[in-house]
């Protein structure tokens, strides 16, 4: 019991221990805070990577030809949809027709724009992905409805980047602000808010969407193009920057007209009732049945879970998280060194005490325990305070950042760049527990050496030392 008594006394009487506690405090709190923010960012990134994706994605390769000109895959999605919707695990499915195109404002020459297609200098040419949907299907199978109703981000001038559609229940209805110039009824296009703000579009404005039409004739010298007028109905914000910059949604019919009925669909998005439980099994079953029915060519790559579809990005995120954790663990090693230095100093300083303690009956093991306990107290106080501060800061990161930004007069977190209206921070209790345990382990490991050397101190040498 002298161990706890004496180690506590050493701890409170020696100023240098404050450095050790401080070191551990800073390491633990910084580690928790940074890891929480990192996790928050990554989770946010993960959900935005999922973005407009549903649970399962079917992308048949439709241009494959065999035996002359025969298409292997039926051009209509109906049979595929029937198979999918027959499965009790399926909640909803939505058919997409995806096509590349270019969007220009009225007055710009769409043909001229297409002529610049191959020119890398024209990198501000608004190449877009035109997605033809049935909005009711899309609402039930993906989070498109949320993307349409999400509050737009604001630019530097405080103006919102996007504009909601007039009626979320009928997003492809003509907006009230549209002033028809001709009696011909124009279709409506929904535009990602980034693209909308970059092109300086307005709701109700007419835009040109141009594209290339595929030819069944292999000998065609030039690619025929087509273009069509659309009315801007409103914007969506998926949260994924790329999506909001490169995607436009239209209804299936006008898109099919635009591309000359070349294609009816390109992918089917499926939402499951319980993706976590059934995802993989459903994917396998679907692969099997659609291959049997020759609805897809039978490549496994044609039926994927959303995670498989984004595997490289998700892998990068996981990788990043692991890398972060490893790099940040170095902070713990630094804290460990801090303890090592302080304890080594203390053992040298306390040589005489060690001799005295031996003389009055302490065992080497008891002396070792005394110094290990000093490190233990350091670790205990440091981690408790550090964990508390780290978790608190993670929860309060937004006000803290705002206060710091105000105090320093610089913007630390640029909400423009990240497209988040807050700093994401997810406190992971397992991570906190691991950090605390790691700190203890690290501290005691680094303390072991000086404590061991204390235990080996020759009492006579120590007592002769003056």
């Amino acid at each position, binding site marked *: 019991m002298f161990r706890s008594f004496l180690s506590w006394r050493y701890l409170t009487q020696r100023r240098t221990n404050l450095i050790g506690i401080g070191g551990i405090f800073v390491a633990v709190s910084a580690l928790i805070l940074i890891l929480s923010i990192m996790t928050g960012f990554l989770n946010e990134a993960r959900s935005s990577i999922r973005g407009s994706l549903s649970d399962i994605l079917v992308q048949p390769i439709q241009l494959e030809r065999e035996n002359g000109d025969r298409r292997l895959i039926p051009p209509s999605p109906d049979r595929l949809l029937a198979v999918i919707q027959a499965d009790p695990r399926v909640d909803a499915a939505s058919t997409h027709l995806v096509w590349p195109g270019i969007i220009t404002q009225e007055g710009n020459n769409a043909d001229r724009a297409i002529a610049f297609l191959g020119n890398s200098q024209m990198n501000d040419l608004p190449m877009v992905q035109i997605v033809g949907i049935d909005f009711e299907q899309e609402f039930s199978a993906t989070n498109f409805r949320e993307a349409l109703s999400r509050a737009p981000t604001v630019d530097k001038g405080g103006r919102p980047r996007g504009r909601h559609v007039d009626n979320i229940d009928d997003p492809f209805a003509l907006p009230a602000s549209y002033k028809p110039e001709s009696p011909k009824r124009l279709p409506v296009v929904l535009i990602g808010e980034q693209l909308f703000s970059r092109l300086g579009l307005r709701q109700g404005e007419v835009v040109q969407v141009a594209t290339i039409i595929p030819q069944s004739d292999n000998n065609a010298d030039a690619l025929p193009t087509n273009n069509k007028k659309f009315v801007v109905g409103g914007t969506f914000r998926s949260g994924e920057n790329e999506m909001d910059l490169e995607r436009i949604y239209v209804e299936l019919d006008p898109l099919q007209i635009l591309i000359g009925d070349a294609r009816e669909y390109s992918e089917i998005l499926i939402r499951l009732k319980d993706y976590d439980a059934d995802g993989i099994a459903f994917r396998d079953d679907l692969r099997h049945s659609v291959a049997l029915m020759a609805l897809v060519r039978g490549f496994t790559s044609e039926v994927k879970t959303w995670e498989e579809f984004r595997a490289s990005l998700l892998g990068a995120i996981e990788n990043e998280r692991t890398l972060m954790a490893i790099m940040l663990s170095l902070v713990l090693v630094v804290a460990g060194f801090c303890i090592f230095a302080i304890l080594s100093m203390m053992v040298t300083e306390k040589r005489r005490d060690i001799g005295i303690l031996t003389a009055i*009956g302490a065992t080497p093991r008891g002396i070792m325990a005394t110094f290990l306990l000093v490190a233990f107290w350091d670790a205990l106080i440091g981690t408790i305070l550090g964990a508390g501060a780290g978790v608190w800061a993670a929860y309060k990161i937004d006000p803290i950042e705002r206060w710091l930004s105000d105090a320093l007069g610089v913007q630390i977190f640029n909400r423009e760049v990240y497209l988040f209206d807050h700093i994401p921070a997810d406190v992971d209790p397992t991570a906190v527990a691991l950090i605390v345990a790691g700190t203890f382990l690290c501290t005691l490991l680094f303390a072991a050496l000086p404590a061991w050397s204390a235990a080996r101190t020759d009492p006579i040498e120590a007592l002769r030392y003056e």
Partner: protein
Amino acid sequence: MTAFNDSTSTNAPRSPELSGAAGPFVEPKSGSESALQAVQIKRHFQIGNRELGVLFGVDMDLAPGEKLGLVGASGAGKSTLLHSLGLLDRPSSGKIRIEGIDAWALSPLDRARLRNHRIGFVFQMYHLLPELSAVENVILPGMIDPAGFLGLGGRKRRRELTEKASELLHSFGLGDRLKHRPSQLSGGEKQRVSIARALILDPPILIADEPTGNLDSATGQSILDIIFAEQERRLLSLLLVTHDGNVAERCDRVLHMVDGLMQSSESVAAEDAARVALEANEA
């Protein structure tokens, strides 16, 4: 030696009945009849590749309740011998018996227990822990139970020890210094604290290495008064190293150490005889 020869008979043994009992111990005793025994202790130190001999086969025997003085020139090896006797420094060869037990053959834990319970050690340099108050320094040996587990039943034991330590310090005239740090105490006060620390667990053996060496003579006297009073009260087996002939006078028996060897008992006996003759002449 000169100091010893200068000594007068003013400091005659204070406890005639004990000194009488101790009187017959001329021959080394064996077994549990002796409190502390050294048999052919040799100690040499390795300095670089040279070997420095300090003790060359020392025999010594401290009977229970005996007051034994040890004198000798500086560098004679007195402290080295005491460290071996106090189980702090393993001799190169020879045996130390504490109440009949071969102490250096024991496990480190058992040896620590002997140091803790059976031997009180008083140093010339006091050797108090600067972070602890007087009373905490005194209870420290009681807080060390080499086999004990962390803090179990500690609170009660600590309270009892603190009470006992306060009483002891009170009786040493330090009643108003209990909470003081060693740095706030004078040399004499520090030495009194260190004596209290040595005695807190009521060990049967007290070893003191020049306890007055750093003190002026008046303070030194008061320290010695305490040591001898406690010896008498507790019937301690006392081994006292001193340079002061007057101090040696207060012991039952005095051993002389010269260059790592005890002076032969014959010559000591001869000196004793001479002293007795001198006293007889004076009387």
